[in-house]
């Protein structure tokens, strides 16, 4: 009582009734509302950022899933393709198909004959990939030599970008006035069309944006991830089982625990440095190989898997263990036959989430050289390769305008992979979640 009267005497004006108190109360309620609004606004800011990020990438990347094709009257001239008439595979694959395309262009635009500048302008509308396309056709069926046909051939990236509206309709697009005029002619004549971009999913990397594809990076990511899963899942589960079920609490296990928690927070680039020094310099494993990438990602994801597996093991109630041991099971039988199967859904969920992180990880891969320009699709895990996120990084650094949409498309593919993995994890959790 004395304390209360003392505080009242220290603030003589403070009362609980009257206009003054009313005012104060209103101010306090206003502060309450403001504080609440701050929270909502923060969430809104974060979500707005997410929305802008996704929207900008989808807006930029969506157009990369289609590609412009030009219809040209190609004559498979026997003189150009196979002057000897031998029809040998080597002769057919070494033939000069660009000449066929140039001839087709002259046929389409008879007015450019004799005008070298105009010829060169028009030739820039057709992709280099058109030659590969024609070669593929001839090799598949040498009988077409000597015939003519209207064939849809891929347009160059500059023409593609102008038509998609990603580049301005002027010389900044990389096409000259003459070429742009011809492009408009083609468009008006209906000999241009946009098709689904299969190159994006069937080609390896290329310097030509219109030919660059993701399959090499996807295969590289797949190999790395397969190695990561094959190593980090058994090792992680074994470590978690030991620490949770068998280890006695002593300084050694304490040290291991502190270590795992610290490793989980070590920047991934440091793991890259470790992989560079140990796997490449000391053990002499090949550079740029998904094998080494997988090993590095194993080290990165191991702590996460151990931590989540321990949480899942902890959630199995102790009476399961007591019942198993009461029936005469050894401790290992108890763990292997009862505890581990019950904890498995939780462990799998944690593992999938860790793998989703690993697939988006690029810093350690940069360290071990998985950033090379690799055209070939890796056949084994020791061939040079890149990975999906690294391909995003490489394309983002390319100066050509057309790579902007390719990069966004690659990001969309990467995000789709992540979405599938995370959805699987959520499904597993929902389906097998048990309340004891």
């Amino acid at each position, binding site marked *: 009582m004395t304390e209360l009267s003392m505080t009242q005497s220290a603030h003589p004006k403070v009362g609980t009734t009257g206009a003054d108190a009313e005012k104060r109360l209103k101010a*306090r*309620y206003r*502060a*309450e509302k403001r*504080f*609440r609004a701050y*929270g*909502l606004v*923060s*969430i809104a*800011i*974060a979500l707005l*950022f*997410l929305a*802008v*990020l996704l929207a*900008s*990438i989808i807006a*930029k990347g969506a157009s990369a899933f289609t590609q412009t094709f030009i219809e040209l009257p190609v004559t498979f001239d026997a003189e150009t393709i196979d002057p000897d008439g031998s029809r040998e595979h080597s002769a057919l694959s070494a033939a000069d198909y660009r000449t066929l395309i140039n001839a087709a262009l002259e046929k389409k635009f008879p007015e450019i004959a004799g005008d070298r500048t105009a010829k060169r302008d028009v030739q820039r509308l057709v992709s280099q990939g058109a030659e590969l396309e024609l070669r593929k056709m001839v090799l598949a069926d040498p009988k077409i030599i000597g015939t003519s046909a209207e064939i849809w051939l891929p347009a160059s990236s500059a023409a593609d970008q102008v038509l998609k509206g990603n580049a301005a309709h002027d010389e900044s697009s990389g096409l000259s006035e003459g070429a742009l005029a011809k492009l408009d002619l083609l468009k008006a004549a209906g000999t241009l069309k946009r098709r689904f971009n299969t190159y994006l999913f069937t080609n390896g990397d290329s310097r030509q944006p219109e030919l660059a594809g993701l399959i090499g990076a996807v295969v590289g990511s797949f190999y790395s991830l397969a190695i990561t899963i094959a190593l980090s899942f*058994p*090792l992680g589960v*074994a470590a978690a*089982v*030991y620490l949770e079920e068998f280890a006695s609490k002593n300084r050694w296990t304490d*040290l291991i625990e502190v270590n795992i*928690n*610290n490793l989980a*927070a*070590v*920047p*991934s680039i*440091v793991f890259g*440095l*470790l992989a560079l*020094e*140990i796997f490449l*310099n000391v053990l*002499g494993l090949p550079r740029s190989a998904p094998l080494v990438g997988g090993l590095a990602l194993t*080290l990165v994801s*191991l702590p996460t898997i*151990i931590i989540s597996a321990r949480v899942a093991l902890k959630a199995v109630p102790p009476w399961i263990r007591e019942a198993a041991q009461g029936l005469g099971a*050894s401790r*290992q039988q108890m763990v292997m036959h009862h505890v581990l199967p019950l904890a498995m859904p939780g462990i799998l969920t944690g593992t999938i989430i860790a793998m*989703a*992180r690993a*697939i*988006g990880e*690029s*810093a350690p891969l*940069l*360290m071990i050289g998985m*950033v090379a320009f690799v055209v070939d699709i890796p056949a084994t895990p020791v061939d040079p390769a890149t990975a999906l*996120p*690294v391909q995003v*990084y490489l394309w*983002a650094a390319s100066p050509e305008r057309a790579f902007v949409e390719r*990069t966004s498309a690659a*990001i969309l593919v990467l*995000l789709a992979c*992540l979405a599938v993995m995370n959805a699987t994890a959520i499904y597993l959790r929902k389906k097998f979640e048990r309340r004891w």
Partner: protein
Amino acid sequence: MQFLTLVLALLLISAMVYRLGARQAVRLGGGAKGGLHSLPSYYGYYVALWCGIPALILAAGWMIFSPLILKSLVLDTLPPDTLTLPAARLSLLMNEVKQMAASGDYRFASDDVARGAAERYHSLRTISFAAMTVAALSTALIGAWWGMRRVSPKLRARNAVEGMVTLFLIASSTVAIFTTIGIVLSLLFESLRFFAKIPITDFLFGLNWSPQTAMRADQVGSSGAFGAVPLFTGTLLISVIAMIVAVPVGLLSAIYMAEYAHPKFRAVAKPLLEILAGIPTVVYGFFAVLTVAPALRGLGGSLGFNISAESALSTGIVMGVMIIPFISSLSDDVISAVPDALRHGSYGLGATHSETIRQVVLPAALPGIVGGVLLAVSRAIGETMIVVMAAGLSAHLTANPFQSVTTVTVQIVTLLVGDQEFDSPKTLSAFALGLVLFCVTLALNVVALNVVRKYREKYD
């Protein structure tokens, strides 16, 4: 690939031996399980382990050591004038030889010596692999025979098998220790080589960073300067900007989620926020370069500032957004862990909800929040892809967020991507930077984890 086939073959043989062992045990036990010490399957595992483990160890050891032996064998046969080449040239030659031998394509050999060596390497490797296959398979068979011989009803098969399993479990749990030791040793080893060339004080306190060393000794002005202070300040500047974005937004979202939000709102908003954490950082980097930096540049231009295209501001903002979910989910956890008794006491004294949060809940949750923020700082410092793509390359000693700065991780990447020479300070300096990065993040983590742990003990 061939090696994988061999491993698969060994596993297959072990699986077959497992059946044999189990059947043998039942036969010896007189057909009934009663006469055996362990379940028949344990006898199977026992024999399978004897069959598989020694063979696999042999094969793995062979794979690790045979390249070294092959290399010395090939080096011995090289002509003497090739052997007197400088070490760097020689290792380059050996790399070429190995690559040609691996691909079996000798067309692009630089000279006849390399071609001959490659062919020799290739044939030696084929012989070595064949020898390994024979050795591994016979070890497997001898192991299986030995295991089968030991199978008897009295054999304590379960104890033996469980012993092996325990060994595997213990070995797995030490991988974490070995990883840490590996990190420390590899960083320390290369850093010491670096500090032998550049004094450690020059590195830690020098104000000038330009790691391009001269190609020729007589070149001017390119001796290479390795003062890392501009990198540290650049990292710090970007991290501070990221924290200015992430801490208020993350903390306020966490407070709203934990204290105000309707469960339905929470069920939608929380996973959406977590999506931000799941997006790969390379995507953030692309977003920073393509959307945020030009937007900020335009905004700055209209306000009369000159904002660099690689400004610390745009990089920091995007990094901050990446960290928001990290801070919000950690803070959400600690705020939810504050006991309700504290809140009820405060309401009982007439405090409003926000007054309770600010004056009771937050002070109680402060250690946990500080721990979370420290972890977030360590993540910001170690973040690589965003800064590699969005921040600059040249080191400026500045605190101006509109200018471009470079960071420790950016320099590590630029120094190590491309040609590496492990005898030049340029490449080695990346490891010194990595060591600094590791030490700083480790210190932050240890402090943060201790703070969080102490706090947990208080309320559990």
